[in-house]
């Protein structure tokens, strides 16, 4: 597991090591952090620990510029959430903000220095049509996908095609579940909704409970296939766990029990394994014991290690070895394998490999 020595991961584990970095190492760190979408998060970390002045003068602007962007995005996300709330006011059912949007809405550590591509929300399945038409009235429309991708979303996915705002270009993903219907595991969305938390500052907007937030993030990471921001998502998880443990000392027990209830122990097992590997997140031994029933056999774990220690590293040349492309490919196929039965998967991959590239090579968010 030599890739645990990725400079960015080392820096996240021990930020004060930057006082000893050579300029050549700074060059690598900035490039890895930019590729991983973590420049602004590092900047936040350095400020928090009063380390910003340890950054060489000619390097500082990279962190400041990323901070500027992240601050602006955070304000923009808060504002967009209000707009979505207004648009969905008459839905007759509160909507739940997921992932990054939720971290901002609930003012969690994981919102610090985070960059956004889109805002994810969860609505009950029977409200999906109403939600989509209300959002369309407010200016969000499905764009940029091929006909095949649109059909694929509607038929098989746990979300509708991404909606982009006609003026502001912001993108919303509307989900009715956290995994597709065809997936191996079926976490019950009603159970997730039942524990959702109302936010005092943002009435009408809810977020998942701390344990569900973590399980969702882990599930997403190990089922999504494309991992351009794998390490960023791991740092989100690390921060979410630390926040939750601070609020509740019995949090581990709660988390493991909830994972079992939602059939999500396996993604939790992998998340904790690679959190330890990349970020030294303190996970007590009892948690391993409790997750034993969900632990794959030794052979599978060894194989997964070879895949995920590579696929979760930043997408930068300095973090790749000869097996990295293969590992990313394997992570992609594995994720699809878990998301749909074999006959569908084979048809889908054939379409993606041989038909889609000839029809349309500008798909912004392929399924």
């Amino acid at each position, binding site marked *: 597991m030599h890739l645990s020595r990725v400079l960015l991961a080392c820096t996240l584990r021990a930020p004060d090591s930057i006082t000893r970095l050579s300029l050549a190492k700074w060059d690598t760190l900035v490039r890895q952090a930019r590729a991983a979408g973590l420049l602004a998060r590092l900047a936040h970390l350095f400020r928090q620990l009063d380390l910003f002045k340890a950054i060489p003068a000619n390097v500082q602007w990279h962190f400041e510029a990323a901070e*500027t962007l992240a601050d*602006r995005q955070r304000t923009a996300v808060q504002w967009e959430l209000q707009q979505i709330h207004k648009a969905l006011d008459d839905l007759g059912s509160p909507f739940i903000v997921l992932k990054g949007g939720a971290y901002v809405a609930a003012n969690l550590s994981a919102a610090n220095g985070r960059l956004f591509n889109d805002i994810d929300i969860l609505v009950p399945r029977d409200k999906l049509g109403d939600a989509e038409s209300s959002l369309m009235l407010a200016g969000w429309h499905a764009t940029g996908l091929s006909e095949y991708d649109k059909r694929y979303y509607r038929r098989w996915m746990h979300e509708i095609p991404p909606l982009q705002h006609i003026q502001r270009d912001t993108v919303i993903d509307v989900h009715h579940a956290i995994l597709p219907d065809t997936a191996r595991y079926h976490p019950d969305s009603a159970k997730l909704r039942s524990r959702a938390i109302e936010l005092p500052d943002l009435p009408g907007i809810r977020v998942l409970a701390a344990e569900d937030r973590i399980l969702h993030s882990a599930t997403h990471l190990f089922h999504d296939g494309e991992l351009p921001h794998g390490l960023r998502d791991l740092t989100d998880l690390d921060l979410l766990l630390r926040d939750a443990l601070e609020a509740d000392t019995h949090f581990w027990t709660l988390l493991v029990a909830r994972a079992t209830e939602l059939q999500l122990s396996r993604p939790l097992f992998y998340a904790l394994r690679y959190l330890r590997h990349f970020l030294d997140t303190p996970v007590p031994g009892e948690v391993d014991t409790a997750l034993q029933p969900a632990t794959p056999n030794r052979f599978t774990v060894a194989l997964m290690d070879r895949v995920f220690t590579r696929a979760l590293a930043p997408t930068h*040349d300095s973090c790749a070895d000869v097996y990295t492309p293969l590992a990313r490919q394997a992570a992609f196929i594995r994720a699809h394998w878990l998301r749909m039965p074999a006959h569908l998967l084979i048809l889908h991959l054939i379409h993606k490999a041989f038909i889609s590239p000839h029809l349309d090579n500008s798909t912004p968010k392929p399924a």
Partner: protein
Amino acid sequence: MKLLQLSHHELRRQLSGAGIWMRTGPFSLRVQSRFPYVAEGLTELYGQFEVRSAQESFADFHVSVNPPTNLRRWVRPQAAFSFDGMQPFKPLPQDQAFPMLEWGLNWCVSTQAHQYLIIHAAVVEKNGLAAILPAPPGSGKSTLTAGLVLSGWRLLSDELTLINRKTGLIQPLPRPVSLKNQSIEVVREFDPATYINRASLDTIKGTVAHMRPPRDSVLRQHETARPGWVIFPKWEAGARTRLTPRSKAQTFMFLAQNAFNYSHLGADGFRVGSALIDQSDCYDFRYSQLHEAIAEFDRLAETAHTT
């Protein structure tokens, strides 16, 4: 060390190997390319720019222009720009490798360097005051910029006006001046001694060539300038040279819309932009004769200098 001091062989060796380390304005670059066109473009246009040994350790932007790794290279040779492994544009015909590097560098600055308010405008300086020339394509902005910098004005930038958010001063980024279509001939006629490189035909912007930036502008690339004017030039056949004052509020709106990162800066963008407009006289400018246009600009600079 200056780029022109490198032997052609050494330049090619560094460029096609780990990349050559160069400085333009406040940014350090590592440029890597296997195309002889790119080596040629750098030699011709970047001779006065600082280079350092290939071992120089830190660079702001790691960029490359190389043949893409798809099958088309056997059919119609192409060039692909990459910013540290990321390809923001589709590949272009190989003949456009050098302009692609220029466009790619502009893209790096305009999407990353948020320590500046970045306005899409040319900017030139005389007597310590800068004239910002924002204008849509086809307005004769680059012809006028080239004419001015060949007549004693200092080139700060032909595309990207960088306003330092902390000081409000304009940071030079003098690089080759991009000339399009007829303006290539106009500038050649205006000053036959100036160097303009081989034109790339049929680019997305038509025929494109680059003019070597004046030596003095490159040597003074760390000397910032105070904003003096915002002038919207418009070339019109047969028009009388005329400078007319324009509303500051409208000018502000135009600059905000034509800034690459105004919306990213939030309230600070407004603060920096309005401070800029406060200090600047704003004009519309029509002209048909380049010499007259330059004389008018010189008068402006003279008046500001004596008052």
